């Protein structure tokens, strides 16, 4: 069956998620390689392409990490074809060393790097505005505002990239990537050319990187010229606005909503900029001439804001006196996402037409209702999640070890182990692979008097992504720590994309699996393996690891419960022998629901016994191992 995203029906209107619109733009542009490492809010772009790949003349892969993904995609652009990579903000940090060299060496084909930022860090460990990389790398930056633009500007980004011989950055945010809107499709591309590498024009910046830098400066000035006439930049509103909103990306909708809500379209103009680096100076100066009060509306850092202010400072002599408001002045919040209420309040204040966006009494009412009706719920692991069992074993082992051992953590579902879900057992979390790296350093401090055992944890996908260099480093320098790989056969947090251990690719091709245990043994680590569902064996294995002198690896292998369910692995069935359940009484004290707290378990206040929610329970049976009286037991299901 043909995937709908690949249909050849120009002018047809499809309801697309922002990320799907970007994927369609990539298809219309005829990219030959799409490579990425998953990370929300970017994952759906390559997920969509992977699903459609069999209808496309395109290599689509989930790469081992973002740097490798960008390198793989760049190969297409080094041989005259088009390549694309998509990543979240943290991913760009991983890829940026390559990117900030490729800007100087340039490309021959088209290379587009889609960056999806996550204001407020809704599905992230940080909040960052990746647009600053455009300025640092002196690379063209496009910021679509609408779903149609998401598709069209993606296609245009390839054309621009080829025109300039530079990678082009396309920037999105959660509210564009994950929302849906109508998109009118364009035509599909014709046949692609044959890739060829021209050895006479190598991509090498040395021996004189400054010369390459000079060429980059020339390219970016040409780019500015192109942007001067871009239809992605426009002004709408009165000729002499009382307030001019200068906006980009998702800020456009917040601006439109604010103006519409207050009926201000005769007083407020909107200057929408889709090409935010390099800024089209002549275009901006022309419109600044009619402004007296400017408000910048953009997600993230005051990026457009500082660029325009800089421009104004350089050309102030020929411009009216303008007062600027934005994030720098604190008129808009400097952290977290924007929302329409922020705009409505600000415009109401500026133009003296205040509108209560949400009555306080309403807000109090809602809070009271929530307090009364909604039970407190922590972030929790799914029923049957092997990580819950792993953290239980870690907690037991560290307590029994008695030396106040701690856990250097990493990014993945198991990152919730820093909170109640994992009994606060995970104690550091920064970048992908940082658990191993930080532990490699901590493991040196054990030789200097740090008398607490050091544990690092890392998921399977994260292991391949960034833990390997840290492990090699630790091995070389004899760091003393226990490395736990939480191998659940999945890149679970981002949506179950394949990784190198799984024997398959993004497009479902068989691939030789790269075994974590083999890699660790090859690095010289003693490797132990156990099933985290077996709490006793896991606790004992961790205890052994803590007592052992020197670095070692323990692989905790158990398929993610969601993957197991998808694979149809028959679940067991946990049942309760109510006669044996002693509930709140001494000797148990509701161990299963007060300490272990799997969402599949509940409490019956009438019988004062545990209760199993069979709709949620996966039958993993881990709770039967923490039940002190054997009241919880597993029975086989047919």
């Amino acid at each position, binding site marked *: 069956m043909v995937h709908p995203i690949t249909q050849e029906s120009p002018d047809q209107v499809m309801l697309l998620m922002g990320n799907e619109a970007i994927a369609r733009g990539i298809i219309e542009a005829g990219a030959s390689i799409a490579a990425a490492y998953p990370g929300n809010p970017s994952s759906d772009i390559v997920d969509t392409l992977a699903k459609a790949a069999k209808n496309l003349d395109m290599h689509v892969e989930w790469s081992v990490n973002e740097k490798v993904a960008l390198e793989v995609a760049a190969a297409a652009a080094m041989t005259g074809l088009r390549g694309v990579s998509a990543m979240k903000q943290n991913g760009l940090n991983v890829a940026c060393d390559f990117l900030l060299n490729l800007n100087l060496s340039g490309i021959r084909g088209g290379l587009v790097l889609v960056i999806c930022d996550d204001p407020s860090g809704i599905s992230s460990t940080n909040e960052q505005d990746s647009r600053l990389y455009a300025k640092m790398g002196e690379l063209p930056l496009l910021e679509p505002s609408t779903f149609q633009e998401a598709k069209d500007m993606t296609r245009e980004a390839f054309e621009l990239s080829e025109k300039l011989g530079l990678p082009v950055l396309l920037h999105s945010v959660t509210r564009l990537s994950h929302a849906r809107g109508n998109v009118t499709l364009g035509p599909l591309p014709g046949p692609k050319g044959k890739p060829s590498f021209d050895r006479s024009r190598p991509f090498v910046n040395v021996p004189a990187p400054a010369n390459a830098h000079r060429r980059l400066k020339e390219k970016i000035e040409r780019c500015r010229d192109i942007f001067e006439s871009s239809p992605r930049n426009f002004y709408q509103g009165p000729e002499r606005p009382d307030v001019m909103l200068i906006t980009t990306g998702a800020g456009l909708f917040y601006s439109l909503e604010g103006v519409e809500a207050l009926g201000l379209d005769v007083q407020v103009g909107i200057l929408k900029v889709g090409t935010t680096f390099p800024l089209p100076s002549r275009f901006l100066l022309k419109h600044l001439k009619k402004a007296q009060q400017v408000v910048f509306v953009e997600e993230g850092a005051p990026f457009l804001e500082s660029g325009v202010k800089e421009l104004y400072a350089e050309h102030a002599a020929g411009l009216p006196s303008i007062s600027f408001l934005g994030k720098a002045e604190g008129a808009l919040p400097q952290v977290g996402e924007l929302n329409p209420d922020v705009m409505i309040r600000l415009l109401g204040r500026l133009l003296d037409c205040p509108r209560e966006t949400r009555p306080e009494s309403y807000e109090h009412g809602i809070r009271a209702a929530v307090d009364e009706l909604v039970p407190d719920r922590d972030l929790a692991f799914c029923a049957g999640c092997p990580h819950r069992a792993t953290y239980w074993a870690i*907690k*037991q082992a560290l*307590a*029994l*070890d*008695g030396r106040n051992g701690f856990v250097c953590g990493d990014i993945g579902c198991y990152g919730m182990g820093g909170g109640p879900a994992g009994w606060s057992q995970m104690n550091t979390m920064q970048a992908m692979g940082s658990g191993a790296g930080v532990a490699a350093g901590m493991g040196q401090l054990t030789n200097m008097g740090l008398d607490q055992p050091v544990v690092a944890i890392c998921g399977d996908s994260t292991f391949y992504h960034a833990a390997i260099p840290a492990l090699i480093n630790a091995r070389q320098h004899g760091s003393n720590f226990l490395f736990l790989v939480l191998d659940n056969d999945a890149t679970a947090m981002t949506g179950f994309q394949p990784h190198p251990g799984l024997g398959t690719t993004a497009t479902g091709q068989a691939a030789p699996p790269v075994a974590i245990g083999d890699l660790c043994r090859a690095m010289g680590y003693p490797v132990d393996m156990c099933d985290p569902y077996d709490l006793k064996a896991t606790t004992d294995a961790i*205890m052994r690891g803590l*007592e052992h002198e020197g670095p070692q690896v323990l692989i905790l292998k158990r398929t993610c419960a969601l993957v197991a369910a998808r694979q149809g692995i028959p679940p067991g069935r946990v049942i309760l022998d109510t006669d044996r359940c002693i509930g709140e009484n*001494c*000797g*148990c*004290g509701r*161990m299963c629901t007060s*300490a272990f707290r799997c969402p599949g378990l509940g409490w019956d206040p009438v019988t004062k016994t545990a209760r199993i929610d069979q709709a949620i329970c996966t039958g993993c049976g881990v709770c039967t191992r*923490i039940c*002190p009286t054997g009241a919880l037991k597993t029975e086989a299901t047919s």
Partner: protein
Amino acid sequence: MVQHSFGKLNNDVVGNNLCTACGACAGLCPHFGSYKDRVAPLHECTQPLGACEEACPRMPSDPEALVRAAAPQEMITQEMGPVRRLWVTRAKDEDIRNRGQHGGTVTALAAFALEQGLVDAWIMARSHDSLSGVPTVCRTRAQVQACAGTKLTSVPVVGGFLEAAFKDPGRFGVVATPCQCLALAKIKASDHPRLRQAAEKLALVVGLFCGWSFGHRELSRALSGRVDPDDVTGLDIPPSRHQSLEVFIKGRETSVPLSKVTGAVRPACAYCFDMTAEPADLSVGSARLPGGWDEARHWNQTVVRSQMGEDLLERANAAGILTLQEPPEGALEKLKTAAAGKKRTALKNLAQLSKNPDDLLYLPRGFGKSLSSTEHGA
């Protein structure tokens, strides 16, 4: 403010370094756990008066009251509890003597009691690795013999007993150190329904003399460099004037100055008042004989405390299992002096810990007041 039992054990016992790792709490409740010679609180529990608190030998109790019923009043001593008789004993079976510590009395008695049906199983400490042990349920002579030999690190035997008692039918005997004997006595005396359930299964307690025990990790560290801890097959502590720890390494024997390992002694042992395992049916330790250590190391001395203990010893003697000898003159007095010395040290240390001479933490106010304040050491 109601303090939960979990909090009391966590703060007053573990937090004060009083925990003896007997394993009572862990055997009663999944909120505690044990591993080798360590017991740890794992998950917060909110029971206001839990069985753990009732059983813990370092939560307040009156140890003298607990042993009062074992023997007539005139047989109760201030220094070492009830004493019906003192014997110098050893196993007749040479194989048992060779495997066991000193005279092998405990191994021989335990095997005999099993075969006579006095108990259905023993809970004993079996070597886990060279320096640590695990509580083991012994239902056969061979299993008993596999536990022969003293472990100088704590083994959570009370936890092992409770686990077995809640799971398995039958009546159990326990071979226990003094702190563990106190836990077992508290379990027997308690009205707590969970403890009554376990107490019904407790038939016999053989106590072991104990001066102190080592922390496993600390001993391992103290020995490393001198011997490979993994090669150690046994340990012994000769009378105190030798000031040494005997270490047996695969058939050969070496001696480590006691001063090199005293830092590895469990801090909790400094607060223990009982050298001779007072709340037991029989208590067994190393003998002191006129021929010195070379002779004494092949014998035990056994204190008969309860009627049941007396019956067992008599039956074993009649069956030709044990050799019983009258102790040398003054042996009981020497033992009392040593036991009183341990009591005085413990009381001093407890008062120091509480920063109040009248507050003995887990012991009743005025405990040991009547001990004479002269003389020293065995």
